[in-house]
């Protein structure tokens, strides 16, 4: 998941905050998304009912996850879809490579897939002499510029049209400079039509996999997803194993939540449901369909009753749109494939707290993400849990590399804090000392850091206890 060899979150954040263009791009786009979501979910009670329903569907699916995956495998196999399992992203990449090699294929077209980003698939295929072309417009733009997505839904949102005009002009042969969005669109259409025509294999993600029927649902607006799954003779779908739903009738409510939360749409242009490869008497569609089911740490997350809620996520990106931190620093600063609030809870669990635990600190716990999440993941609660796990000294802690931040000074400080607040005598002494000394503590170490953007509170000379003792209380 990581492509962050020298990941310095603090530095990333301060760099992003200084980038005025980036902040402008994100502020505009996120404001727009918030508005569009509000318009599509105007009735608060109905939205709440819908979210309850989404939450229930995903919880039920997670409770039965192994059985549903087995059922999916059985149905898919019966329908002619070949199922492959991958414990790690490396294994998933190998599956793709093996399928490519079996067909002597060197050209792949890709629909948008965050799991393929998690796999680092493009780089991997490139090293193996295979050309993988992103066909979603946003993904295509950033692939040309050798960048990673900065948003789950609109991957090139950090770029404005001037920047995109330059990228097209520079990277696509015989392309004049134009800032006209229709014209940029037409350039992409022309370039990518040829890629669809030539491709030997098409790859896509999966928004929902239905155990009951063995159906893979793909949601999109551009038609590139349908192209990748219709025109080439081979289709490979990659999915995280949490994308399961139990029944086909679970799809409509989740679909409504997904498109409404992601882009403020009642429905996307296309909802593509794939249940089998081309049948004998059919004229098109891939002759082979492969489904790669990726674990990469997810099965361990399922074992924790609180943290498993992370797996309810349907990747709509609305928590990013509503996050005051994400809106100001953008997606790249997070340094991992999944940015924003969902990334802050997912990456530390998959990558370990040592490497990614700091992400959980980039939140004011304002609860905006929890209020809008279509499947009601209590993100702030999980952030607090991950923060605690980082500093935990309990042997019962469960997250990878828990306790990695545990240190003596912190423990002593908190032990002291606990004593002062639970023993009346220590409390009185503590207050006396702080009343006299509190304002004279030199701003050193962590206090200096804390002080940089905050004003140190002034300690009253006498504590409330003391004042009450001296003055008494009326109407006691």
């Amino acid at each position, binding site marked *: 998941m990581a492509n962050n060899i020298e990941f310095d979150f603090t530095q990333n954040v301060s760099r992003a905050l200084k980038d005025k263009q980036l902040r402008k791009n994100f502020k505009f786009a996120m404001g727009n998304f918030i508005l569009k979501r509000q318009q599509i979910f105007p009735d608060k009670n109905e939205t709440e009912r819908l979210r309850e329903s989404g939450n229930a569907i995903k919880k039920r699916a997670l409770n039965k996850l192994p059985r549903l995956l087995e059922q999916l495998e059985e149905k898919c196999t019966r329908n002619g879809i070949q199922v492959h399992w991958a414990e790690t992203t490396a294994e998933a990449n190998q599956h793709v490579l093996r399928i490519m090699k079996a067909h002597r294929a060197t050209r792949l077209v890709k629909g948008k897939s965050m799991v393929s980003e998690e796999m680092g698939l493009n780089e991997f295929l490139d090293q193996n002499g295979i050309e993988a072309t992103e066909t979603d417009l946003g993904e295509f733009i950033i692939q040309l510029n050798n960048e990673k997505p900065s948003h789950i839904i609109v991957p090139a949102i950090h770029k404005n049209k001037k920047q995109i005009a330059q990228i097209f002009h520079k990277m696509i042969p015989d392309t004049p400079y134009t800032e006209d969005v229709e014209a940029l669109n037409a350039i992409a259409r022309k370039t990518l039509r040829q890629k669809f025509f030539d491709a030997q294999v098409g790859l896509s993600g999966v928004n929902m996999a239905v155990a009951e029927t063995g159906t893979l649902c793909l949601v999109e607006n551009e*038609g590139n997803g349908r192209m990748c799954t219709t025109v080439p003779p081979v289709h490979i779908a990659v999915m995280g194993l949490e994308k399961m739903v139990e029944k086909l009738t679970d799809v409509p409510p989740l679909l409504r939540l997904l498109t409404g939360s992601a882009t403020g749409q009642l429905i996307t242009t296309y909802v593509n449901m794939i249940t089998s490869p081309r049948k004998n008497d059919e004229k098109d569609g891939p002759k082979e369909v492969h489904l790669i089911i990726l674990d990469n740490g997810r099965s361990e997350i399922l074992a924790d009753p609180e943290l498993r809620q992370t797996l309810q996520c349907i990747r709509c990106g609305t928590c990013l749109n509503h996050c005051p931190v994400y809106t100001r620093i953008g997606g790249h600063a997070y340094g991992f494939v999944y940015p924003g609030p969902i990334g802050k809870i997912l990456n530390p669990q998959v990558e370990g707290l040592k490497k990614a635990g700091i992400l959980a600190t980039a939140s004011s716990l304002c609860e905006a993400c929890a209020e809008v999440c279509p499947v009601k993941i209590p993100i702030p609660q999980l952030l607090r849990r991950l923060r605690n796990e980082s500093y935990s000294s309990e042997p019962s802690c469960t997250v990878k590399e828990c306790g990695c931040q545990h240190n003596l000074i912190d423990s002593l400080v908190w032990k002291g804090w606990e004593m002062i607040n639970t023993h009346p005598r220590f409390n009185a002494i503590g207050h006396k000392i702080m009343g006299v000394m509190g304002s004279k503590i030199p701003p050193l170490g962590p206090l200096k850091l804390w002080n940089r953007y905050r004003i140190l509170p002034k300690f009253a000379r006498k504590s409330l206890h003391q004042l009450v003792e001296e003055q008494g209380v009326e109407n006691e």
Partner: protein
Amino acid sequence: MSKRSRDRILNRLHAAVKQVSSPAAAASGLPFEKLGRDEKIDKLKGFMEAVRTEVHVVEAQNWIEPLKGILKKREIKTLLYAPQTTIGDTLQKHWPGEDENDGLPELVTYEGHIENFKDQLFHTDAAITSTLGGIAETGAIILWPDKKEPRSMSLVPPVHIAVLDADKIFNTLGEVMQAQNWPEKMPTNAVLISGPSKTADIELILAFGVHGPKELIVFILS
């Protein structure tokens, strides 16, 4: 490799769900308004027009003439259609011979498999298909492509024309799934379409026709 990974993954998952089970409320089916026939037509039309679909409500036998007008106006040269379907038969019956075609496109059929037809498919101006039904709640048509009407017909040509029977417009997707018993008979590919291909990936500016059809024209036969 895959088999061992499969077993290890499933073992972990089985152990995990044995350990904990999250209390999940039963998902109630979403309530929806049951609309009358005309209301459903209006709702579907309104929503689909809002995403730039061209919708014509016509009398059941009366879609050929407006279709001809649309094709001529756009100077469409080739129209891909499926013979041996109701639409195909009607088209053949009402299409003039080559010498008297009067600016109408040539009717072409999907010859052989996509491997042989791809070049022609990518150079066809328009395609006309039937639909399985429509969804009023969100505004969408439902296509279940089959051996007669391959799925690339509604995807590759720049103009897609779809014919929808007004009696087959359902209130919601959930309703049509149950009414037609989808879980028992999902086809190779089912697709819902609400409009022409679109994107807002550049500065959230909406642009149409990025990869799929640039135009979607729907005839509702009422």
